[in-house]
């Protein structure tokens, strides 16, 4: 916990002048807003541990204000996540897919998609026959509303694409 927010430690470097006090230069990521920053502590200083856990949850639906998820542990327990929590993966949210939800004191603060998701194409220019060899690409709009670039020309509406959520790039066609 740092300044009231849960954080995770990305880097922790031991710093000590030979005859001086020891310090730890720590790089944090704020789990609520993703902001990364650095703080220096005297070695041995302690911080409050945050009650944070990650849980696999299935995305159910959005009611316009909250995004509802259900635990996959058989308890069928549901939670409602705010727009702030789901903002990082709004483009990749598909009903019945499983996401990693970060809970802080039982409240969802972040939702992360898997590295790859499969989504259906809802809109794209018609494919041009015989034009696949020159490696041309076009944009496509997916079922979530996200638009991605770099889709091959042979992709049609209704095709299901595999997308890398870390880069937002097209990986392959799953089926048509």
């Amino acid at each position: 916990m740092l300044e009231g927010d849960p954080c995770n430690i990305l880097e922790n470097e031991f710093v000590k002048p030979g005859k001086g006090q020891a310090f730890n230069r720590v790089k944090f990521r704020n789990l609520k807003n993703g902001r990364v920053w650095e703080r220096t502590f005297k070695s041995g200083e302690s911080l409050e541990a945050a009650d944070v856990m990650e849980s696999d949850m299935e995305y159910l639906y959005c009611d316009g204000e909250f995004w509802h998820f259900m635990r996959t542990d058989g308890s069928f327990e549901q939670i409602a996540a705010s727009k702030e929590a789901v903002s990082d993966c709004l483009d990749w949210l598909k009903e019945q897919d499983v996401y990693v939800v970060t809970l802080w004191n039982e409240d969802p603060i972040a939702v992360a998609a898997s590295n790859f998701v499969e989504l259906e194409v809802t809109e794209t220019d018609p494919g041009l026959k015989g034009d696949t060899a020159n490696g041309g690409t076009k944009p496509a709009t997916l079922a979530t509303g996200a638009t991605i670039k770099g889709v091959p020309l042979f992709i049609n509406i209704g095709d299901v694409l595999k997308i890398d959520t870390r880069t937002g790039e097209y990986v392959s066609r799953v089926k048509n």
Partner: protein
Amino acid sequence: MTSMQPSTDVNGLVQRAALLQRLRGFFAQRQVLEVQTPVLAPNTVTDPDVESIAVPGYGFLQTSPEYQMKRLLAAGAPSIYQLAPAFRHEEVGRLHNSEFTMLEWYRLDFDHNQLMDEVADLVNEVLGPASYTTVTYAELVGELGRSRDELDLAFAEASDALSPGRFFVVDYPADQGALARLKPDNPAVAARFELIIDGVELANGYWELLDPGEHLQRFQQDLAVRKRRELQPVEIDSAFIAALDAGLPTCAGVALGVDRLLMLAMGERSLDKALTFRNF
């Protein structure tokens, strides 16, 4: 990496061997005598910011060979050097390892300025010649009227930023003199220096304090700080005090981190490739 593998590679071993040979050649040429003092001894330093590794029933792994080398000088040894392992409790990181190799040497009738010149000669021989910039502690750290914690943090940040290049930091405040004498012409500062290369603290030297009474006074202050911080209790090394009573000759001494020097020679940013094994 599996656990059998060393931290360095064969090239690293060759570079370390060449460095050790070169260091020994440097001192042989200048007729400085190589000595060996015990790594395990009944007493250790009182310094509140240097924690020793205690060996129950025996004493402590030495954090530097300083006291025992000074006892040799008090017993009539000429200028001496030592290449030895040194140990620090819980100092592990990119530039730290709880066991490291220290090069420490003492020059009779030298002052800190003469010794700084010799340190530069040695470094030039290993890393190639370059120029050295001298900066005072006050210039480096800025406002001195702050708590020791704040000064230490400011020093750590500012010395990191002394990069690239080679820098001697001089004129440490009297209360950070460690075992350096105070400057006769300005007793507010100690005749202590450190060498920082590319942001890495490489060596720490003194025009040595000789007065046994002033030593005892500084050690008592250390013990008071240790008690306040609830650190492991240590006793003042009476054999060292006895040697000072017998008389330490006028000399300057310096300790230099050999693994860090090797790291710089290899163009590395961390000790990983310089250390043979990373056990900590």
